[in-house]
């Protein structure tokens, strides 16, 4: 079965002011698969992730050239509705960042902002999203409690539920488990494998076992360049590039 490409970068360059953070990135990201970005700190993984939902627009000195398309349409074309784009491409951050509101209000935030106010509909969305994020059973009796009273792992799954509540197609996860304990991490990894059926997931991770365990494809970045990008199994068993090999075998800074 040929992979259906959902996101496609071609000769993508990215600059923070004069400093170039991404160089000639060319890659097709398949739909309904898990793609992992790995690479040493500062190599541009987060930068690439945040160009996909245009979160880098918030940085005044940021500049993008080249093309990045979502379903064949250029994300950076003039006139693109950035809020609509971000609804389709959700994001989960490294540090769990629930709003200082109740669990319910956190998950309902997106739909409410986008105009759903019908109580029954919201209830259904909140429950669906929390179930999809594998956190429903733990919070169903405390939906009205502050999300900040949950554990870090629970908070992160509430954040995932919050992202799912706006029904995105793509979920970007930037080291979403790096602040969590092993058990919470395992739960979220299981969750990612389940979510793959319905979403396209792109995750940044420093944990190579994690990339190997749950991703279908892996991309290795080094100093702003995409060094190698292929099926995860292949990348870890027989890397083509010497630098990839050095990195995955730990012979690298």
């Amino acid at each position, binding site marked *: 079965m040929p992979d259906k490409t959902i996101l496609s970068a071609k000769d993508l360059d990215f600059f923070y002011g004069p400093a170039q953070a991404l160089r000639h990135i060319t890659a097709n990201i398949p739909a309904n698969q898990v793609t992992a970005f790995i690479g040493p700190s500062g190599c541009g993984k987060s930068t690439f992730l945040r160009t996909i*939902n245009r*979160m880098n627009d*918030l940085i005044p000195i940021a500049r993008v050239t080249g093309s990045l398309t979502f379903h064949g349409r250029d994300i950076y074309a003039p006139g693109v509705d950035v*809020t*609509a*784009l*971000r*609804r389709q491409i*959700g*994001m989960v*951050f490294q*540090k769990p*960042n*629930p*709003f*200082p*509101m109740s669990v319910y209000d956190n998950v309902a*935030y*997106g739909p409410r*902002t*986008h105009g759903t106010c019908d109580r029954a509909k919201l209830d259904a969305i909140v429950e669906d999203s929390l179930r999809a994020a594998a956190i429903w059973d733990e919070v169903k009796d405390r939906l009205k409690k*502050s999300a900040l009273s949950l554990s870090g792992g629970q908070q992160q799954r509430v*954040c995932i539920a*919050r*992202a799912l509540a*706006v029904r995105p197609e793509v979920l970007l996860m930037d080291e979403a488990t790096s602040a969590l304990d092993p058990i919470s991490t395992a739960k979220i990894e299981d969750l990612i494998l389940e979510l793959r059926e319905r979403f396209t997931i792109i995750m940044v991770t420093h944990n190579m076992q994690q990339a190997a365990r749950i991703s279908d494809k892996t991309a290795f970045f080094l100093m702003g360049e995409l060094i190698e990008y292929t099926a995860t199994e292949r990348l870890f068993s027989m890397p083509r590039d010497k630098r990839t090999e050095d990195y995955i075998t730990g012979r690298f800074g």
Partner: protein
Amino acid sequence: MTKRKPAEVSMQILFLLCGLVAVAFVLLITAYLIAAGLPAIRQVGLASFLFGRTWDSTNETDPRFGILPLILTSVYGAAGAIVVGVPIGLLTAIFLAKAAPPRLAGLLRPAVSLLAGIPSVVYGLVGMCVLVPALRAWLNLPAGDSLLAAILVLAVMILPSVIDLSAAALEAVPKEYEEASLALGATEPETWFRVSVPAAKSGIAAAVALGIGRAIGEAMAILMVAGNVANMPSLLRSVRFLTTGIAIEMNYAAPGSLQRQALFSIGLVLFLFIMLINILLSLTVKRGKEV
């Protein structure tokens, strides 16, 4: 256990003394206000003092000491100032903390802080020379001195501190909250109103509390624009506040007279008022923090 150095101990004692002096002053003022304020209340009767609708302290045959008009004027005045000043202040704070280009905000923030330092008599002067004649002309009044003029002056006076404190509270909202909201497809204004403002609500409540305190306690500026007749409050009529009630008559009230004692009673009422507001607000702020 190590022995504490003498220098450390003497510093401790110094701090303790300073604290005690400050507390002692507050207690002293409280005690004095109560002692000075009670006699007139006892003589006039608590109910007819608080709820009497006529204040006519200089009438030689039948003086009246009802401060209801003063109480209501102070309440309406402060409420009006909040209703007018807080929305404007909050929107300005959102603009300064979130929307304005950093360089513009860098210019405006100190300017706003500067406004907070202008003496209230200056606000009164501008109100008297500009606002009052303007109101008289626009609304076709016999005189522009009115509750409305006082409310507008108070609103302007509380603006700087409302803006300053709210903007600081908004700036302290963790960026992560706003990023999360934007990443969900919310626009920036949606993010400010639905995430940043709720997250900053205890700081904003403190700003409002400070505004109320200032509005209730202000005397000089409103003395110059309110007309100072002890009418029951009405927006376009001349009114007298608790504070201005004291300020106007204190000069010529004979020592030991009932009039003078009644002025102290007004002071006591004002004091209790401000205490009550502070307690209520600190309770709401605390509750807000727990959510």
